[in-house]
């Protein structure tokens, strides 16, 4: 009786919202309907084969994070900072994945369903191990422990394999940066996912200090001159006016890494991602470093 009432209500809500959504689509193996606020959580869930019923900022996620791919059935909840609680309620999740950056929303989220916080980024802590822990915790919560363990082990093995392929080829330090505008960059330090992955690949991260946690890009381009030896890997987004600005920039053109063509732009990857982003970055950066024109400078 109760079950029937629930289904009827869900059906009514779905119809009223105009969503033609079959309930089974959002079910994980455990039969739980999962909604995701944090992008790192979304990546990790998808990598474990869990299709959430709803998640945040999907337009941008498909552009910035790229893989794992988000099925069309997932409902967009709007901005991560201000998720749309009406849409979230209508999606009827029974578990919501969040992280320590969304503590302020926890009270509201808990009104919809139970929450699971998967903290990956904490100031001063290399995020790779927390990302592994997050994947394992998610596996436990959703009855996908075996998949989670396999994924963690697989990621570690693949990063090790990629590292082997670079051994002896790349001896220079590597610098991972992202452009804020044509005059400012953000450099990724050892407390960032990219910095940690560089380390795991057996590479030397040229940016010795910690990366600032803000999404600000507070370094002037001239700071790159302090690392004349580095091979530079540019992480998108790279807006067109930045490219034009760099073409006109006497300083950029004079930098040793630019003159000697030791700069490569990799595909988009989530800056604050989970284990799938770490793996994607490892693949992208290895491919970029093994490209003949870069490898020449090894």
């Amino acid at each position, binding site marked *: 009786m109760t079950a029937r009432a629930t289904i009827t209500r869900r059906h009514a809500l779905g119809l*009223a919202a105009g*969503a033609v959504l079959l309930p089974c689509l959002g079910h994980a193996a455990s039969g739980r309907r999962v909604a995701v606020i944090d992008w790192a959580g979304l990546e990790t869930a998808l990598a474990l084969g869990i299709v959430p019923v709803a998640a945040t900022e999907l337009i941008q996620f498909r*552009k910035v994070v790229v893989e794992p791919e988000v099925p069309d059935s997932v409902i967009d909840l709007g901005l991560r*900072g201000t998720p749309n609680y009406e849409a979230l309620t*209508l999606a009827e999740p029974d578990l919501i994945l969040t992280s320590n*950056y969304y503590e302020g929303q926890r009270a509201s989220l808990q009104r919809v369903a139970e929450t699971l916080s998967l903290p990956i980024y904490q100031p001063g802590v290399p995020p790779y191990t927390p990302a592994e822990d997050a994947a394992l915790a998610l596996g436990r919560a959703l009855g996908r422990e075996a998949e989670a363990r396999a994924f963690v082990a697989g990621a570690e093995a693949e990063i090790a394999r990629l590292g082997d392929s670079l051994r002896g080829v790349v001896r220079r330090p590597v610098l991972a940066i992202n452009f804020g505008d044509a005059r400012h960059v953000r450099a990724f330090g050892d407390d960032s996912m990219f910095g940690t992955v560089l380390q795991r690949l057996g590479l030397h991260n040229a940016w010795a200090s910690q990366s600032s946690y803000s999404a600000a890009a507070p370094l*002037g381009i001239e700071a790159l001159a302090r690392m004349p030896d580095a091979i530079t890997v540019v992480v998108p987004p790279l807006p*067109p*006016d930045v490219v034009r600005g760099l073409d006109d920039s006497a300083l950029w053109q004079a930098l040793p890494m630019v003159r000697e063509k030791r700069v490569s732009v990799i595909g988009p990857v989530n800056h604050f991602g989970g284990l799938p982003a770490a793996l994607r970055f490892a693949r992208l950066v290895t491919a970029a470093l093994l490209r003949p024109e870069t490898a020449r400078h090894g």
Partner: protein
Amino acid sequence: MAERVAVNRILLWSGLALAAAALSIRQIAGHAAAPSIPLPPDAAWLDGVILYHSVLPRIAVALVAGAALGLSGLLLQRVLRNPLAEPSTLGVSAGAQLALTLGMLYAPALMNHAREGVALAGGLAAVGLILAMTWRRGLEPVAVVLAGMMVALTATMGSAALILANGEYLFSIFLWGGGALAQQSWGPTMTIAVRLLIGVGAAFLLMRPLAILGLDDASARSLGVALNATRFGVIGVAVWLAASVTAEVGVIGFVGLAAPALAHLSGARTQGQRLVAAPLIGALLLWLTDGLVQLLAGVDGERVPTGAATALLGGPLLLWLLPRLRMFEWPSLNSRPAPSRRSARPYRLIALFAILGAVAVGLALTVGYGPGGWTLSTGPLLDTLLGWRGPRVTVAAAAGAMLAAAGMLLQRVTANPLASPEILGVGTGAGVGLTAALFLVAAPGFGVQLAASAAGAVLTLAAMLALSLRAGFGPERLLLAGIAMSALCSAVLTAVIATGTPQAFALLRWLSGSTNEAGPGDSWFCAGVAALLLATLPLTAKWLEILPLGDVTARSIGLPVRRCRVLLVLLAGLLTAAAALFVGPLSFIGLIAPHLARLAGLGRPLQQGIGAVLIGGGLMVVSDWLARTVAFPYQLPLGLFAALLAGPYLIWLLGRSDARSH
């Protein structure tokens, strides 16, 4: 005496210039000195490249951009006879930024070739709009500044909404919106320098017509000045200067306002002196600020964008100088609101506002936009959604009502029609209090947050009022001080947000003003505070009627003036803090609602208060509803819709009331 003061000021500016020069020499020396550690062979050459293409052009661009903004501000203030006119208050920078954002999103090819043209078009459009809106009021200063701030706020919010709706990351708005001066070539310096030279040339050619424009229209016409042609010419030059600065280095606040004011305060009396002093002071302000920003930058980068930091330096400077000046002769800012018609049946009007408010609430509760389009929710679906919509609507209504009441109190206490929590910096002051709570207390509860915001708001307000009570501190000076304080508090907030800690994230969410997180507890609390505080309004009605008549009159009828003021300030501070805690500092409702009530015909304090409270609450509910539905499921800034809804109506009313009084 006067001479000593003049000498002191010259000493002050020379000191500041020396400090700026020392900072620059330090930066240059960092790259010109022999390296202490062995470096690869081309490191020295690279240091030369950095010095020539980055360090030196950065100093140069600070100087020319500061000078250009100073000159632009001076020209605008002169030609509009308005001490508060400048590129930011007239929406030039915000308009240019909006145009650049639009261009970047929808016409990237155009941006490659005509960046400056796009910025100029945006700036001109903003100023054109403001002039068109206030033309019938004879470009009266109060109306121009009101319209300008409205257009500027709407454009800023519009840029933010565009960036958000396109899914760009939230931080970029706050950080890249602030101008940054890092350079990699001499291009921007040369571009701005050429504009500056043309601007200075034009200003000197127009010196005589400009001086005459400082008089009133009739005298200007009788002296044979082609009034409108000259006016538009000067405005065009000023807008061009500001727009090219925005296109090259981003929005740099405060210099355009502060430089001419500081020039005046420093004793530049004649037109020629000011034309020299304002650009020089603007250049010095920006040069020094940028030097300090670089000095405080760590190895991991700069903490604050220079465009925001100008307020950290210029704000206190202006606040310190303002009360110290006796001979402060602005072109008078007629701050008395135009007499407006009083309704014969005020309570009918109030009933009408109440009905409209109820309709707004009903609309916001039942109508929504979902995955399937617009829906009118009923039955069990409505029950589910009410759990979210109910608290949102309650919080929006209560916050709007409180801001409106605070605005009404402030406008009456200061006898200044432009006073409002937003303009006097009370909302951002509450934000600084909140920041302190977030960083000093490990996990501040709601009570602590409210107490800290209230403390911030009341302290800011008390400082403003203490300034305004000084002899000869006219309404213009209060507004200048308020804008300085507001800019100062915003700069503090920007600096904190740039740290990127989880506290910063919480603060950013607060600043963008969203009722999204409102839960049942919040709504009871907010409604309770609002009811409690608003219930005291009737008790203040008598004071509000008497205080604007002047202290002497007030005392003669036995009113304890000082105690009344303190209580009213406390009340306004509490109202603002409670509201800002829920909807952020950038709403404009506190400025607009009291005016709408007054212009609709509610003249007496209590009637105006009730009217403003109803209008403020209703407007906020509708704005919140629009913010929630327009880009579903993405939510837009609340303040955008508050400004879009109320701004044009306010301007129209201002024009209409003027037409009637003639």
